[in-house]
């Protein structure tokens, strides 16, 4: 039995430790927002966070995630806090088309903004080039990240003003 902490909750799963996290998350835990695209870390559809860093869950064995915080697309928004600024920006810019890659895109974008709240174009290229979108929504993703960045930074400035 392996214990995994996913979106703040502990789950006991009985799987081969070599099983990629992707399949455990989808099949054992039943969180299907994380998608299978290629199985070889080439497309980014399966992107999740491991202790805050974006990783490709299709090539990450369960054994590598024990004791770490796993976050999936389902853990990005909450009933209390509402949508994450990245998700709201995705709606405002009408980013998704087929939508299949977008969980992974959102996860990569959230991780980028958490480590770099004001990314420039080359930061965005570096952080997002591991995520393929066959519908070609790249230009809207770029706009979405910039929009979310503004919202996040404005909120941070507000907090500072209140605290300061």
């Amino acid at each position: 039995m392996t214990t995994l902490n996913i979106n703040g909750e502990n789950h006991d799963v009985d799987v081969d430790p070599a099983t990629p996290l992707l399949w455990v998350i989808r099949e054992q835990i039943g969180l299907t927002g994380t998608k299978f695209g290629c199985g070889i870390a080439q497309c980014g559809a399966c992107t999740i966070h491991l202790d805050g860093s974006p990783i490709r869950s299709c090539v990450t064995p369960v054994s590598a995630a024990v004791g770490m915080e796993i976050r999936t697309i389902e853990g990005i928004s909450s009933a209390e806090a509402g949508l994450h600024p990245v998700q709201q920006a995705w709606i405002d810019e009408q980013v998704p088309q087929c939508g299949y890659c977008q969980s992974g895109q959102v996860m990569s974008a959230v991780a980028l903004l958490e480590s770099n709240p004001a990314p420039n174009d080359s930061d965005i290229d570096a952080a997002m080039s591991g995520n393929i979108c066959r519908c070609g929504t790249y230009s809207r993703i770029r706009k979405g990240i910039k929009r979310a960045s503004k919202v996040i930074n404005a909120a941070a400035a507000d907090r500072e003003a209140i605290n300061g």
Partner: protein
Amino acid sequence: MGKWTRRAFISAGVLAGGVVVFGVAIRPGNRADKVRKMIAGEDDSIFNVWVKISPDNSVTAIVPHAEMGQGVHTTLAMMLADEMDADWQQMKMLEAPANKEYANYALAKGFIAGDVDFPSFLVDTVDGFFLTVMKAMNMQITGGSTSVPTTGQLGMRVAGAATRAVLLEAAANAWSVPASELSARKGEIFHQASSRSAPFAEFALQAAALSLPVKPRLKTPDEYTIMGTDVLRLDVPSKVDGTAEFGIDASLPGMKYAAVKAAPVFGTTVKSVDDSSIQDMPGIRKVVNLGDAVVVIADGYWQAQQALDQLKIEFEQNGSETIEQSDIFRQFAADMDKATVDGEEILDFEQGDAISALSAADRIVEAEYRVPYLSHAPMEPMNCTAWMHDNICELWTGTQNPLGFAAEVADALEMDLANVLLYNAYLGGGFGRRAFPDYTIQAARIAAEVPYPVKLIWSREEDMRHDHYRQASISRFRAALDSNGQPTAWINQYVDKHDPKEAPYIPYAIAHQYIHYAESRTHVPWGFWRSVDHSLHAFFTESFIDELAFEAGRDPYQYRHDLLAGAPRFQKVIDLAAEKANWNATLPENWGRGIAIHKSFGTIVAQVVEIEIVAGRVFPRRTICAVDAGFAMHPDGMKAQMESGIVYGLTAALYSDISIRRGAVAQSNFHDYQMLRMNESPEIETYIINSGEKIGGAGEPGTPAIAPALVNAIFNATGKRIRELPVKMHDLTDLDMGSKDVA
């Protein structure tokens, strides 16, 4: 209207373009009740299969098309809501069930195979009018960029307007006032003189008993309140938080997982399977030999795939194992030569006498182009969950043709179509791939072997190696130029024609034209690929016209502009693209600019591409797109489709190459079938012209002109003329920029 009577079916159906309704009415038995349960809640009134009004005044549009990212659910709902004057905030959308009773038009398999023209546009008679709607809607096929031009224009709008008309009539009866004094707005009916108003739902029951107008008056563009606006897409919120359900997300109690390996060489079969190596692997349930493929069923997908990879499988040989890609191109060239030598050229289009004009010409320009096979590679690999129980087959998948798939499964398993139930989910990309039912039939055949539900998932490798491929092709041109460099004759021969027929035709005023082709069959399965034949012919024709402009010493935009003098709609589109691109502005060193224009699916698109060459690599930096689809129902959706078509087309032009090695597909995943990524994606500007001409499609027309615009830009930057795709196969390092070579 608690339940549908046969009479209600006929009246609602026939009069409102009641395609579906009509079909149900002529079927024996109690099918009607079954349909009612599928699309209506207990207290709903159904006018026809496109619209239902609930007691809470919400209006549900029932859309017979699959949502694969093109926003069609939203756009079709907009068209209906606008004509009906419904409240957009209370609009809902439901995808029509894949049910014979819902879509009761004899399913023509030949149609699916592509041998019937589609769409056959407006016919004037009432019968013809509705027949056209029936064909478009009842086939339930999403493809050919037809959803808005056909279903939307002929179905949703008519249904919305007719529904509005009977609602007003019912209100007029209830209030004892003339209907002409009533108006409708945002789901309510108003009578100004008596200051009365009431929601649609109040009159729904009475309206359902009235005769729907056969040809309701449709709004003119100045009356539109929803069409032509940028409403937010209905499907987007579920696609940012992981809740959107795709075919691969289906989940059933007791479900197992299947991985599959089909014979790598098309058309061969399984010779033997040795499963001794997987006997001790955990979670394995069953190995199934389907004859042309081997399947492992396990408790989890990863277990199934791991075991499958361990299996020792031998395949039969059928002679195709020796075929290499170069053999295929050699065969094409030989068949083209042979057609000419034997006098067996198949005529595609002829005007004037091109052969005589050519022999009398001052100057002849010749070129030959090639394109490779292409895979669709949607982000969601093929998958289907199937469960065979109680003599029924239930299927959960994503398909562009739900009813057709159900029919194919019924045929393959020799079942009654009524016992095959298919539930369509969101499609993680379609692009034509999900019009082919192979994966669904496979899932049904696997489910027939076991008592539990099985989710079949194709690995990416399986998806890439068992696609239905855009054809590889060769196209040869000869043109005559007069002393001013004007083309007087255009002769084009290519290999392997599919669809649409007009894909190789040119809009330019060239007096003498002869376009013909040769057949040259291969063992590689063919499939509709975004924009179908347009995807190759725009590359051929718009590259060659660029070559003629160069030979004539003319600017490639001006040359096209002048040759489009007799086609003012084209001319406006190319002029707009050139103007917005600032066509004559100087570019930095190692940059180039190219232009192309092509009409497909009723929509004219001009593209200008600006590229930069960095260390021999081509980076598209900026794309300017001008599009005339008659009228953009959802302008932001139109722009999104152009962006999508451009990236899809650029990806293919720069990188994509499915090649045959020892009879099988050599590529297997995104490492060797490369995709355009964020860092390579250009800025895209789209400019829309609402010309008022007949409505065209949006999902495909963005793709055809981008490849020629790209290679024309490379020529502009480097002087190197790329005549074979993809671009990546050409060495662009150490070019003497400005010289004019040919690749």
